[in-house]
């Protein structure tokens, strides 16, 4: 009967829909043989691979671009060569969206086997949620720089292997400095004079794109360190002395606003986006002379405008007269750190992949091509830039890791938001720091 046919048809449709909506089940080895449509998504293809004998697929999420992306890919190739039965599904993500992407994947129970992080408070959030595998046993700790490994070590357990480190100097355009007879500043007053000379000549002193927020945070971190000394942040973070509303922080906020009022930054910094290259364009077109940025800027330059590299020099953020900080205290961080997800089904292989990604070979490759300092000991630097940078790092007496990656995410967000407001002159420094401190009290209570 016709109607009966329709009923059956509907029933089958419903079943299909229900089956499609169900959770993906990797023990389902029925073999999705009728996947001839070519629309096999990542999940399906990995399932297929597993059921077709002993082929295993690992997924890797990273955020590297340009030359460092190639280094990652080469490391993956080496790994695949050593493990012929394993293929690695490499997926490159964009920097800022990556953070939410990963938490969605973790919460949804479908994380990549190996993933990128920056260590610190962000990684710890996942460790606390029991989402990251303890790889202490498979990692050779002696391989790595102590400071670098510390960002992914919690309670003496290692949760990630570092590949590279970065320091944040002030990059500048040598040609412009020469043209106006400027010299690398020793003190903060020297820097203010440079700012004045440049604004008088219609050149924006600092290129900054602060919609991204962490970019502006560099200035606050440096100023706070130069005023309050290297222990300021640690005391506030560990709740053992000064707090986030300490006078040193307020003073740093005031200095940021002073710079803004002097015209040290482009018009509307808070609307410009680092990821779309708006600040770097100002540097390349020589409408801005300096930029406080991590060493990865060299990587960006080589990718985007190689000929600019000749003009690129750097100095360390100068010390402030009467402050407790020193010129050779640097702000820096570790990136990438590779970790294994707790939910992975191939924990041994994934840990092995981490070891390959954080190997001397990858680190050497990345240092020489991408302009980052190795977190793996024993790298011979060919690149003069990196040689210089690594010497800076080695001679520095203190390293301040980025606030936004060291602090727990919620507090980091308040720090970033209030710093952005400082740059927009829409919040008084006292108020901004009081807000950070209020959140710190809430979040950091043990």
């Amino acid at each position, binding site marked *: 009967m016709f109607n009966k046919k*329709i009923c059956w048809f509907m029933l089958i449709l419903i079943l299909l829909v229900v089956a499609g909506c169900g959770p993906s089940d990797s023990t389902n080895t029925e073999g999705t043989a009728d996947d001839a449509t070519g629309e096999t998504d990542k999940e399906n293809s990995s399932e297929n691979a597993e059921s077709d004998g002993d082929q295993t697929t690992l997924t890797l999420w990273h955020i590297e671009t340009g030359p460092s992306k190639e280094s990652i890919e080469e490391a993956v190739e080496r790994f695949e060569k050593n493990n012929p039965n394993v293929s690695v599904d490499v997926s490159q993500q964009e920097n800022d969206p990556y953070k939410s992407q990963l938490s969605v994947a973790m919460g949804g129970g479908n994380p990549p086997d190996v993933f990128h992080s920056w260590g610190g408070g962000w990684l710890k959030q996942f460790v606390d949620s*029991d989402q990251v595998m303890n790889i202490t046993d498979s990692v050779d700790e002696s391989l790595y720089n102590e400071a670098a490994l510390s960002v992914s070590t919690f309670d003496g357990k290692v949760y990630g292997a570092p590949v590279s480190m970065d320091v944040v100097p002030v990059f500048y355009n040598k040609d412009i400095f020469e043209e106006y007879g400027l010299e690398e500043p020793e003190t903060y007053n020297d820097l203010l004079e440079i700012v004045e000379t440049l604004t008088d000549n219609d050149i924006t002193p600092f290129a900054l794109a602060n919609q*991204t927020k962490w970019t502006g945070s560099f200035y606050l971190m440096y100023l706070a360190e130069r005023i309050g000394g290297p222990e300021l942040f640690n005391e506030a973070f560990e709740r053992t002395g000064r707090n986030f509303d300490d006078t040193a922080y307020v003073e740093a906020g005031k200095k940021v606003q002073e710079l803004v009022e002097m015209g040290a930054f482009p*018009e509307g910094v*808070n609307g410009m*986006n680092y990821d779309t290259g708006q600040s770097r364009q100002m540097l390349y077109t020589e409408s801005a002379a300096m930029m406080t940025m991590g060493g990865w800027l060299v990587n960006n330059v080589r990718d985007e405008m190689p000929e600019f590299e000749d003009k690129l020099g750097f100095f360390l953020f100068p010390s402030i007269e009467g402050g407790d900080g020193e010129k050779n205290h640097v702000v820096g961080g570790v990136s990438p750190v590779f970790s294994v997800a707790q939910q992975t089904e191939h924990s041994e292989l994934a840990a092995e992949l981490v070891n390959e990604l954080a190997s001397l070979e990858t680190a050497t490759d990345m240092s020489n091509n991408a302009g980052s300092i190795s977190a793996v000991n024993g790298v011979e630097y060919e690149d003069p830039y990196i040689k210089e940078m690594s010497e800076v790092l080695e001679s520095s007496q203190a390293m301040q890791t980025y606030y936004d990656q060291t602090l727990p995410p919620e507090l980091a967000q308040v720090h970033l*938001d209030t710093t*952005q407001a400082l740059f927009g002159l829409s919040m008084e420094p006292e108020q901004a720091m009081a807000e950070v401190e209020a959140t710190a009290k809430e979040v950091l209570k043990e």
Partner: protein
Amino acid sequence: MSRLQEISLDTVHVRKKKKNKDTWVIIGFIAPAFIIYGVYVIYSIFMTFYYSTFDWTGIDANMVFVGLDNYIQLFQDDVFWTSIQNNFLLVIASLLTQLPVGLIMALLLFSPIKGMRLFRSVYFMPFLMSTVAIGILFIFIYEGNYGLLNAILEGIGLESLQTAWIGKESTAIWAVIATVCWQFAPFYMILFRATMVGIPEELYEAADIDGASGWQRFKSITLPLLKPIIITSAILSVIGSLKYFDLIYVMTGGGPNNSTELMATYMYKQTFTNFNMGYGSSISFSMFIIAFIVTVFILLGDRSTRGNG
């Protein structure tokens, strides 16, 4: 039992059987859509409310029941109020610009101007572009130092108006709203145009015979017949504005200093950046309630005007 009764019983039986069969067919047709709707809408709404009663990061198994604490916190949260305010700004701006502009463009497409086919594509273009591309394009247009908009202002001698459009808290939300309207006006243009094509030509002929002017024709024929689609468009526009997310996320990320935060972007930030799934869910659920109330009001208003007419 008489024969008559037997027959009538028989027909009742047959009718009943037929009715049964119809029910099954109806269920068969409705069920697939209903199951999808149930899982992705109804179930999700309940789960959102359920999650909103917990203090939960969203990535671990540790959920602490806090009752309605999240909502209490929400009502004291300045950023949430800013975001509601921004959402309503967007609603009003959308209603006041997207619909009229869409209508004007649709009318223009009917005017006997040469090359109208070309303009039809040109007008529709913004809606075809990917939102992210539009966002990045407008970031560069609004740029404060070398942006197109500032260059144009300089070119026509309005230097005094130059500013960093999306970098300033006072102008950022307007800059984004203008972009949203630019993107969505063509959508309503197409809706209106499709309806206008369906208006019978005889009505206009009759009006011509009566000696009606162009404005009279528009006022007495086109507009009344467009009314149902205008109401539908208004609902689409209001609901769309209340849950809007994309361009804000791409262009300002809710900044500077949360001045362009919408409910949806704030929810995203709380949930995925700050790891507050519970709090984020309470924002989502509030969004649902607000959109629901607004829709009910529009529908009630629509019914009452229809009743009067």
